[in-house]
């Protein structure tokens, strides 16, 4: 079953962050439905809507992303779409 996952990344802006992130996403066979990325006050801020073809353990993805980006100073947040549905859609 298809699932959407929302990725938020905040941290110090450096070269290669998106390349590193998308490398992990490719490993997990995730497609990027949407991406918004900005530099705000020298901070790197990114939102992505990801889609997986089948149900997956988000923790595994998070660990992979954190491992791959350990040379950057980033905070990575992932959450299943149902969380946002619960809070913002009736």
């Amino acid at each position, binding site marked *: 079953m298809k699932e959407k996952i929302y990725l938020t990344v905040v941290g110090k802006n450096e070269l290669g962050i998106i390349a590193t992130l998308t490398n992990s996403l490719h490993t997990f066979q995730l497609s990027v439905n949407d991406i918004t990325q900005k530099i705000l006050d020298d901070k790197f801020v990114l*939102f992505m809507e990801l889609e997986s073809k089948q149900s997956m*353990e988000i*923790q595994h993805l998070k660990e992979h992303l954190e491992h791959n980006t350990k040379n950057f100073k980033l905070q990575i*947040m992932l*959450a299943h779409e*149902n969380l946002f549905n619960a*809070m913002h859609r009736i």
Partner: protein
Amino acid sequence: MTFQLNEILETISFPYLNHFDIRTVTMGLSLRDCHRSGDQQTADAVYDKLCFEAKDLVKEVDQISQKFNIPIANKRMAITPVSVLCDGKGAQAPLLIAHAIDKAAKELGLDFIGGYSALIDKGITKGERNLIEALPQVLTETDRLCSSFNVATTRTGLNMDAIILLSKKILETAELTKERDAIGCAKLVVFANAVEDNPFMAGAFHGMSMGDKSVSVGISGPGVVRQVLAEAPKDLPLQDIYTLIKKTSFKMTRVGELFLTEAAKRLQCDQGIIDISLAPTPTPGDSVGEVLELIGVDQIGTHGTTAALALLNDAIKKGGTMATSKVGGLSGAFIPLSEDAAMIESAKSGTLTLDKLEAMTCVCSVGLDMVAVPGDIPLATLVGIIADECALGMVNNKTTGVRIIPVPGKTTGDTAIFGGLLGEAPIISIHDKQASGLLNRGGYIPTPVQGFRN
């Protein structure tokens, strides 16, 4: 993108900036089929059932937390009142069962199991008496077992004999655990109108009207409400403040419902209830006291605090009841003195007194919670404090509870240190005059007229 960026940011800010968490996922389990012929056999049956039924609880709950990126602070269980298993057993049964439960909690990685309990608002059976007799030893020798007793209801009246008996046991427990500032007493609540589906400790138990197995969720989040109010204009009318709290409670409860649905599916048990309680922690910013101060009092405990708390409590309930049909438990605002930085500060400065706390419990969800008093408190005074609080619950048809900690060797102005979520409590002042007559007379207060609703 399916969601606006501000919606994503708001969701993320709940746990990351404002301490929002699911305070507890609590599995309720019936132990009524654990009666065996002997005391030890019964304790063994309890241990086996707990270990079998809850073997996946911690693992599954952790996975839910990771899936939705919201912390779950505690994994707990609520069980059938242990008194039910003690009738027809020997005097040793309560202690043996208590140790079996504590051992299971540790092996399962649970934070607490609640249910060393009895409903004694009308009378006390032999098994229940054995359970109470063992209480100080149980609270001293176990770490993760919580205890509660219901001593009054609107339907049956108030059992003063039970209050006197429990007060003696509270003092004994305090003495036995004096090396740790009487922490044993922090695991005991005396209730009026106890609810059967409360997932919060120390008062959780799996009521006699419940099914075999269910899971309930307790939400917290004073930090989120505090942040919303901090951003609101200072001259915003109270009805608009009310609406802001209501909307926030709605969103938090929706998250709770999501967790409840997911947990029940994964653990293959009934969906219990969602308890929408603002439960503070000692972490700065995660304080109900600060919320009340933002609503409109200079310091929690001063005049106006009860009105502000009434507003807060009702707005939380209304937002929650719109968000889910499964609201239950205690639901409202908790005011545990030792766990709330603003309340600790106010009690230290003398603004927040025991009398004001008692008044506040008329409009909040529970009662005198985590209140530390001088260790030399007379028995008659302790009886009076508990009886007052239970009378409030009985007459006003609401749940009230007392979690009181007489701290041996300490007196008004000192501080009791409990650590962790239990925080630290300034020893609060009590009146010199005692309730000697209530103690000497004993007996019971009959059903109030509010109880005759047939």
